[in-house]
């Protein structure tokens, strides 16, 4: 669920917005819907890694990886494949941290209101 929301929202938003909307989307999606910290970490990681690797391949395959190979060389790497994974994993990593933060942000706020509720019931 969270995975799909992040995947679809990130795909659509990145067509018009800068790359860092993935941070906002992961944060919000996990903040609102993630049930466990594990989900908040893995769902955005997998969603963005897959999305970015997929999109990169969509551009790079018809190009015969000419540009990716040159960029690989620029970064002192021998081929385009490490660049592909670097892109996917870095994107996923940032999304994962954001999702995790989103989840704990909710927790921090939620627990505060939970305390309030508890006290109200005592009174």
């Amino acid at each position: 669920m969270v995975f799909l929301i992040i995947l679809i929202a990130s795909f659509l938003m990145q067509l018009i917005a800068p790359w860092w909307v993935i941070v906002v989307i992961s944060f919000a999606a996990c903040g609102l819907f993630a049930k466990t910290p594990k989900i908040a970490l893995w769902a955005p990681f997998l969603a963005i890694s897959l999305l970015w690797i997929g999109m990169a391949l969509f551009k790079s395959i018809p190009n015969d990886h000419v540009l990716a190979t040159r960029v690989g060389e620029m970064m002192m790497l021998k081929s385009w494949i490490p660049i592909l994974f670097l892109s996917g994993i870095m994107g996923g990593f940032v999304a994962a941290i954001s999702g995790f933060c989103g989840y704990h942000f909710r927790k921090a706020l939620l627990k505060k209101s939970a305390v309030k509720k508890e006290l109200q019931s005592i009174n």
Partner: protein
Amino acid sequence: MLMIASSPLKNKNIQMKKVKALICLLIPLLLIYGFNTKFGQLPPLLKFLNPFSGFWQNAESSKVNRSNAVVLKGTKENVDIMFDDRMIPHIFAKNDDDLYFAQGYVTAMHRLWQMDFQTRYAAGRLSEVVGIQAIELDRYQRQMGMVYGAERSLEGMMEEPKSKAMVLAYTAGINAYIHSLSNANLPVEYKILDFKPEDWTPLKCAILLKQMSAVLAMGSDEFYMSNILKKFGPEVTNNLFPDYPYKEDPIIPIGTKWNFTPLRIPQAPQGLNQLSTTAIETKQKVDGIGSNNWAVSGEKTASGYPILANDPHLNLTLPSIWYQIQLHAPGINAYGVSLPGAPGITIGFNENIAWGVTNVAADVLDYYQIKFKDNSHHDYWYDNKWNRTTERLETIKIRGKKTVTDTVTYTHHGPVVYFQKPKNLDLAKNIPVGHALRWIAHDKSNELLTFYYLNRGKNYNDYRKALTFYTAPAQNFAFASVDNDIAMTPTGKFPLKWKNQGKFILDGTDPKSDWQGWIPADQNPTVKNPPREFVSSANQSSTDPSYPYYINWEFSSYERGKRINDLLSKMNKVTADSMRVMQKDTYSLFAENLLPGILPKVEFSQLNATQREALILVNKWNKFYNADEIAASIFELWSKRLFFNIWDDEFTIANVPMRYPSRDRTIELILKEPNAKWFDNVKTSKKETLKDLVNESFKYTCDSLERKYGSIGKTWEWANVKATHVPHLARIPGFGTKTIYNGGSKSTINAMSESNGPSWRMVVELGKTPKAYGVYPGGQSGNPGSPFYNDMTTTWAEGELYDLYLMKTANDQSAKIISNLKITNK
């Protein structure tokens, strides 16, 4: 409830939660900042790597869209642009404005970053995008007056309605493209260096043309020569640095008549040359940038129509230096190469004529020693009185640092380049401190008009008329027409000078040392249809000493020119293909001249096994710098070391920058004065002879080749030692070519050295319809992610050429069209 909630324990807990929430907000923000920002040389990591707007978006599909359309308000009527199978645009417009608008648009579409970066470089604005590391380079450009010159040049362009319209339409076309760009489709170099294109301006066109002058006409030896004169005196200086070479075959054939009455030549003032030297270090001068062009009359060709060939040599970079294009509109149908950033075609042909250029090493840059009243530099002594200097403020923006404002002092001669020199800038090494620069590129000019008329030229008279508008950088314009006229004209605005004015540093206080006027354009050396039935140039002396004016005392050495002339005089029934073969000729006259003087001096018995094998190879060598030739590698390094042995002891002295005598003079010395005192190494007590130097340099060469490439064999082959490659303009690793296996050397027609060589090769055979062939290293697109970025390099390296299509209409079937772009205004 309130009491409990505000109890210290609960309060602390809520505080903790607040902090935690804040941290959870901060971390994502930091991530955004960290991965969206450039640190040092590293691109902003995720801004660059993400596949939606990062570099992946620049990966162009190898399949090309057949039909494209775009609406651009700036056009007047419909424009059709047809792209052929190498992505070369053929523009069909209905008026000149649309033609140049479309040229600007497609050039930007393929080369925007290159145009932007080159003009930033030339204008001294690199620090703005790459940071403090470029500051001395920027200062150099500002202090040489690059923008000052461009501003004067722009005045010239804007005064003439034709060139004004050209520049304005071209600029509008470029801007139409820039405004259509989203972040995702910015050229990839913008993403790596993390900056954005700004609007193009007519001034940028002018700056780009100034940069060509800087590349081709900024050579200056007078600082070195003045130091030599001071150290060795006039006799030795004249002996070692003669005003006309020992071996020469001038561009204008000997015996050509000068059909004019020359102007009076100004007199050299008395008491010249008591000038100071300044303490800085320098390095040996490297051979200049050269080019070849020639035109063969129909009398000598198989078809009966003339053939013209041209290959300008430059420091090669990717994206390709040139941009091929066809321009078709009422009154013009021309094909050729343009400079990205300047409208029109620079080298090319149309249905009636063909033209090509090589550089003229004219003496159009002089330094004047200035006497300032005091350290404020507000007044300088000239014409027996104090004169005010003017000041120009140069504001240099620096990425991530405070803006720097420098003041450049100008005399009537021009800018004083340095009062204090930068430590680590090679470019600045030949510049004397505290001297004013007089440079032709600071004068008002309008070179665009020359190309406007050449592109539309029909015959010899049109060619002559077009050249009268040309100022700098001076070029040898070769010409051929379908009427079977051929011609060659060293062209440029040449100052009227006394003989050798500017060989040494000039006295800035004496009005007699100023440039005294100009050689009239119609008195520039020229030759039309000479008896030998061909014309040629390869940067050698423009004329023999009978020409009444002084253009320069030294030009490039004669070897390439002589070889071209030798080959052409023997040829008959010339075809375009035989011209192509000539362009890749690697025979070295330098080796032919030098080897007989040194080979017999090598003592075989004193050599080790490797050295013996090397000597046998050089002995057997046919003097072609072929790719697989081991002897070429040995000879190249041997001659270099020998010249070093001869001259370095006398001409390299700390704090007195000098240069070596020329290659030509050195060969003369070796062949005709084998006992000259110069062969002795003055730094040793022993008395060395030429023979000692020849043997030492030969052994040294073999030993150093062995150290670097292992035992003598395949790894010693010339192509491997030379290691030709074409780097990216910003030296981005991976964005240049791989090492190219090819032959050629600086002194052969195929003048290919490490990464300097033929930047464009063209052969045009005129006729009822012209047949033309051409290639450059690289490709049409400037995008390293395009299949058209580097697709021509292999063909170029092998010395092959592509067919060039001069289409008659947009539907001409003779060209292999793979895509089209229709521009409409609504």
